[in-house]
């Protein structure tokens, strides 16, 4: 494919202004495209049904790499991959192997495990909770890890789980309030655009009863200094999409991208935990920090 400018496409199912999964993906893709002097096409709000024809169009027009940002693009990609030789497909957030397609399995399990542990250390009520936008692999992974981590620190802890919507900010706010009313004092959320709702709930809860602080975790992007309640955001589980995308893009450009699963984990520094510096030493005591480091070591050793 020499001589031709390298073309890559980025398609996602949501809105690229959602301040979360999709937006981060877009930004990462843009960054990569700049770095590689590649031509980038971005398509948002792509339903799986449209995806098939869209991808086929792309490969008809000699695109080198198509990044399908979300599990639902796996199947369409597999279908199109059958009939093309040039185009490579990278699907993020899927947990399944399909022929002809590279899946980037962003596994937040380990970071979530860490967060869970931290939550368990900090929670006074022994109740913590997780809010997801939709029960999809990447999100459920968060809950699994979170729960495991918490249990590891405090076997008797109760870990609630609820799902709302990616868009309806109000809904996740009321959900978070429901959590808080039932005594949950650490909330881990993965609801992208709607996360603002959770932050609002946390903020007002803390204003009402400063005595019983409620804390929250960020996800996907680094939400530690979100303007609403950064003083109560302990940490964020961050996916460094740019890193992952860069990796596949370079391979694809060189025509070396192999089909199969790339496990994007803590090991290759794509999925990481970023503690909130504002709270270090105050809420997150050095002891806790140290304990987290130990846990991380174990995690990395484990695999």
């Amino acid at each position, binding site marked *: 494919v020499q001589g031709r400018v390298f073309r890559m496409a980025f398609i996602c199912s949501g809105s690229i202004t959602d301040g979360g999964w999709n937006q981060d993906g877009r930004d990462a893709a843009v960054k990569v495209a700049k770095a590689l002097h590649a031509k980038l096409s971005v398509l*948002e709000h792509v339903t799986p*049904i449209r995806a098939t024809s869209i991808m086929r169009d792309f490969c*008809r027009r000699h695109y080198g790499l198509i990044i399908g940002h979300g599990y639902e693009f796996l199947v369409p990609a597999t279908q199109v991959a059958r009939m093309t030789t040039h185009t490579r497909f990278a699907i993020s957030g899927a947990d399944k192997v399909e022929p002809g397609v590279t899946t980037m399995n962003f596994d937040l399990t380990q970071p979530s495990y860490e967060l869970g542990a931290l939550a368990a250390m900090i929670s006074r009520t022994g109740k913590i909770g997780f809010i997801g936008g*939709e029960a*999809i692999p990447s999100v459920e992974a968060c809950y699994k890890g979170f729960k495991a981590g918490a249990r590891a620190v405090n076997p008797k802890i109760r870990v609630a789980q609820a799902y709302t919507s990616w868009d309806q900010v109000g809904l996740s706010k009321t959900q978070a309030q429901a959590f808080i009313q039932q005594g949950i004092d650490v909330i881990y959320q993965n609801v992208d655009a709607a996360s603002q709702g959770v932050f609002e709930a946390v903020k007002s809860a803390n204003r009402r009863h400063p005595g019983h602080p409620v804390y929250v975790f960020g996800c996907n992007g680094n939400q530690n200094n979100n303007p609403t309640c950064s003083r109560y955001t302990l940490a964020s589980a961050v996916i460094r999409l740019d890193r992952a995308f860069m990796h596949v893009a370079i391979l694809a450009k060189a025509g070396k991208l192999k089909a199969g699963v790339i496990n994007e984990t803590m090991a290759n520094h794509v999925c990481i935990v970023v503690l909130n510096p504002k709270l270090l030493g105050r809420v997150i005591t050095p002891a806790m920090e140290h304990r987290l480091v130990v846990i991380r070591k174990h995690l990395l050793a484990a695999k």
Partner: protein
Amino acid sequence: MFLLEIIFTVGGCALAAGAVLILLALMGFPPGHILELWYRGAVADRYALADTLTKACPLLLTGLAAAITFRAGVFNIGAQGQLLVGAAMAVAMSTRLLSPHTPPLPGITMCLFAGAGAGAAWGLLASLLELWRKVPVVLSTILLNFTALYAVKILLHSYLQAHGTSAPQSSQIPPHFCLPVMMKYTSLHIGVLIAAAVAMVAEFVQVMTVFGFQTTAIGLNEAASRLVGIPVAARQIQAMLIGAGCAGLAGAIQILGVAHFMTAKIGNYGYAGIAVALLGRLDPMGVAVAALFFGALDAGAQRAEESSIGLPHETSNIIKAVIILAMLIIGAWSMRRTLRSGLWQQRNTETGDGA
């Protein structure tokens, strides 16, 4: 009259185009280029046309779903829900119920019928609620849409879920159950033909048959229809069954023809269908035209979005809306014009006779 219609429609397009150009310029996109992309994406070459047709197909069916029921005075907003249920049923049929050894033809037919049937059943629910409990169809169908959505999500998490993933998505439709594609490198599937056939039949039924005559009568004046002995309730339920069936079929065709697997994000053709139906003045052929129009809009929008300019999805939405509005205004205007002149004719014939 018809000429007048055409003139106005053309005028409408022109007006719309003008508005769009200005709008784009304001938003800082090169208007000319975008329109050109739009054109290329919608009608330029065979690929584009195929795309347009493919996108028009579900709209045509859901449009019919709305048109057929509205005509009979049944205000069925539930195409979306019926579509979802139909799709789910088709998936269940093809991936779970049918043995993979079933030969394609009977297999596909059964899937399609299953989809249509499920849709019809879902619609029937609303009709029965009205018949027995006097729950207005407008309302029950809206609520049933949401219910259907979550019900389907549950299925996608449990019964229909693909093996080896925790994602809420069905496993793939076995290839020999997918609708054959009519044109290489596109997803122009024979479902389009099916939809067209359905539209033709609908048109025929409406203008040529007792059923069409009676349903239309009911829609226009229920009391009178009842007094001349037309079985109103029965006809309305039948209309609902047929309409909802169309919606279900739309779902099934989308799955078997385009997606080949299912998630809950199936696109809201149901709601769009209502607009299509009314833009087509509840007349099957009109609906077909409207559906093509919408299909072309979608196809063009997609091209403009994926182009290097990267027209944002939202912006293309604006353009669609503006175009539709323009069409509407012009349509309404022309309609009133024709209506007026129609009145004139009646009147003078009347007096001409009276004199």
